[in-house]
């Protein structure tokens, strides 16, 4: 077996990360952490809902469910049984740019994780029964998270309204009709196309011997052939020139508002500035929008903001739960005013320092356990092709200046670039 050390990064005394690459293209990111006798084993595939096409939305997520099924070597149900018999657990997630699988096990069980994960990269079998049962589960998940959930519903509507051609405009979980109609043959084709070592990253963080882990992974995956992975086509999302607004009537107690602005992707230097702005406005009880909407005017019960860490330009979101009798338009005006203030007025040094301390706290909190470390490393490796961007983005956040904030606020957060969706209470709801 051959592999080569491709990159190394250290942070303080407690975190050293190394990336190796096998001859078939599989990337392996390893970090030893002996603070507890456990490890997190994650397999990240660079395929998400952005790789789907209209009419077959939800494929990546549906397939994620099926990956826990039968393989040529492991009978149905055995995957979960083996993990839980050892005291571990597992899960998976699909988003726009990636799908990942997490197995967390006691330290002595590394061989089990390697065997099960390498096996399902290659030998999954897809029976009709399994596909149909899982279809019901996915439909139930969609009902719970979107159709009967006001936040999920508005999220989906916002993306659909904001994007005209980019695949970020459709929901990762898929439209219900598409979930209903996905065919087993197409699902099999999806597996053969995207589930290959040269489209995958194995991340292992925890109580491991790095050399032993590397040797075990190389043995198990080394003979899996690489595949021709189709490159996602470049998408020309037309520039937005007017504000967009859609309203819906739902059984909610008071109006709910979701506002989006397209900002650059995670690899762009302005992404960190946008993230910084979200903290200035919405993070912590002294943040500007929280004070204005929740504390001072009592217009809302909550306000939240953030920018998703996507590869391509994503929607920076503000989410506001209005108080009864208050209008979403009032909140939009308040958001506009705060964004305009950022574009025109210097942010005091103390406020900049405040955000930087908060960002540092968040960074370390996310690295508290093996799963969190592995998830962060895997996300950056899958999205930007380099785990060390995790640290580069943290450094950029620490260097954001008042000039950066003014420039970014004046560039991306303009009223004509705004997309908003509002849920209004159905007739007969309390007012």
């Amino acid at each position, binding site marked *: 077996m051959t592999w080569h050390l491709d990159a190394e990064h250290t942070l303080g005394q*407690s975190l050293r990360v190394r990336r190796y690459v096998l001859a078939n293209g599989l990337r392996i990111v390893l970090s030893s952490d002996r603070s507890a*006798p456990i490890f997190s084993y994650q397999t990240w595939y660079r395929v998400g809902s952005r790789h789907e096409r209209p009419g077959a939305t939800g494929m990546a997520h549906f397939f994620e469910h099926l990956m826990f099924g039968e393989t040529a070597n492991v009978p149905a149900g055995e995957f979960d049984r083996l993990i839980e018999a050892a005291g571990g657990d597992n899960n998976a997630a699909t988003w726009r740019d990636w799908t990942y699988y997490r197995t967390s096990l006691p330290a002595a069980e590394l061989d089990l994780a390697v065997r099960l994960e390498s096996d399902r990269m290659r030998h999954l079998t897809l029976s009709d029964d399994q596909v149909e049962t899982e279809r019901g*589960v996915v439909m*139930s998940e969609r009902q719970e998270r979107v159709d009967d959930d*006001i936040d999920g519903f508005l999220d989906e509507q916002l993306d659909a309204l904001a994007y005209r051609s980019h695949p970020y405009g459709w929901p990762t979980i898929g439209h219900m009709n598409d979930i209903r109609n996905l065919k087993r043959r197409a699902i099999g084709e999806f597996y053969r196309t995207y589930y290959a070592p040269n489209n995958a990253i194995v991340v292992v963080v925890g109580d491991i011997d790095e050399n032993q882990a590397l040797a075990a992974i190389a043995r198990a995956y080394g003979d899996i052939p690489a595949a021709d992975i189709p490159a996602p086509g470049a998408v020309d999302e037309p520039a937005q020139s007017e504000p967009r607004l859609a309203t819906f009537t739902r059984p909610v107690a008071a109006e709910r508002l979701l506002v989006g602005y397209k900002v650059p992707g995670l690899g762009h230097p302005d992404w960190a500035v946008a993230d910084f702005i979200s903290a200035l406005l919405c993070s912590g009880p*002294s943040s500007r929008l929280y004070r204005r909407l929740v504390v001072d005017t009592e217009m809302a*019960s909550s306000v939240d903001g953030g920018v998703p860490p996507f590869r391509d330009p994503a929607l920076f979101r503000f989410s506001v739960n209005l108080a009864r009798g208050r209008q979403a338009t009032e909140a939009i005006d308040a958001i506009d005013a705060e964004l305009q203030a950022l574009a025109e007025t210097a942010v005091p040094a103390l406020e900049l320092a405040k955000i930087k301390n908060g960002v540092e*706290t968040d960074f370390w909190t996310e690295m508290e*356990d093996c799963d969190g470390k592995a998830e962060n490393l895997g996300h950056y490796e899958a999205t930007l092709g380099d785990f060390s961007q995790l640290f580069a983005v943290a450094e950029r956040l620490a260097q954001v200046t008042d000039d950066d904030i003014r420039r970014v606020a004046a560039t991306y957060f303009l009223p004509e670039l705004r997309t908003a969706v509002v849920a209004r209470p159905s007739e007969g709801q309390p007012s």
Partner: protein
Amino acid sequence: MIHIEPGPRGACLLVESQHDLPMVWIQIAIVGGAAGDPPGVDGFHHHLIQLARRGAGPRARLALDTALDVLGATVECWAHRDAMILAGLCLRRNLDRLCALIADILAEPTLARDEHEKLIRESRRRLDDVRDEDDQLAVRYFQRDCVPGHPYGRTLRGTEASLSAIDLADIEAAHRRVVVPENLIIGFAGAIDEDDAARYGARLVERLPDAPAPPLPPVSDVPPRPRGRRLLIVDKPERQQAQLAIGHLAPRYGSDETPAVILLETVFGGMFTSRLMQEIRVKRGWSYGADCHWYRSRGPHWFSIHLAPPVEVTADALALTLRMFEELARDGLSAEELAFGQRFLAGNLAFQQATARRRLDQAIRERISSLERGFSSALIEQMAAVTLDEVNRTAETCLHPGDVLCVVVATADDVLPSLQYVQSAATCVVPYDFY
């Protein structure tokens, strides 16, 4: 875990050192939580601890919020059944200043009238947010009606009516009574050693009044378990699925039955390979999740089951769940299931104790529940020693499928006709927004 008891001025001090991250977590439990809310004043203790966080010492609310945010620190406050919790987090270099601010919150909260009134209005708005979340609605109604009159049935965040009944003078008096050193459990986890923890612990309590800890609210001498099955439909329009919460009053965590009940909980609905998940999700695709939960509290609390099937199969899913619960109570576990559950729990202990913060959480929960030190860790050995006969006898005596409350959050017109078979005189339909 280092226990210093009695710690500073009679408080209990817990320290869990781990220096791999430059972070310190502080958790302070003020014993006696929502179970001690005065009758008709649900939400009292939650209001008390939230209000204390809104201005303290020389700082009004904005000044205190800013002082904390400038440190990159957070201090969150809430009440659960058995305690009020104040949880802080900061970078190690800011610990000194964070402790000074928390000491102010404990000893000199402003408890200003305008903030008191504002908080009541804010809590009312929060109730609307809960009404928009079907799974939270199911839990809220289940808590209320599982055992009417039970102290754990009081809603933590209050109701429209109970929030109006909160009086500021009562809050001030309660604060003087409960925030005393002997009633505090103070925990530090992360990049801090024992000496520093002792020093900071002393600072946190140095300005608190000298007074004995107040008596704990009674949670054991509770109303009896209601008999027979009851069905409560929480009617909400335009639902595509139903949120189900099914259960009854169960033994106290820490009682002799504890190892057996945990094994029953694990095998029935505590893993992906558990019976509920396999029958409801894996075999039938009826619900994304299907699990059960035994509440760990100081007194007897609920054993409850949760799932969310589509409207069309809600009746079938409820019938199957009840049948499975009956089988569990009647037949118990198989030897193979018991062995599997024991292996899972033994292996899983490492995850529950993987970080300093989790170990501290566990130690504080033990202390709040008046359990012996190290109770949770010792449980693993006890569970490994439990016999099949013991588990199955516990299933028979502690699980009561004939006496469950079934809460169904759904559109009533869509589910009522098919739910006839569980309907009884106790069937009730309520609009989702009346509580």
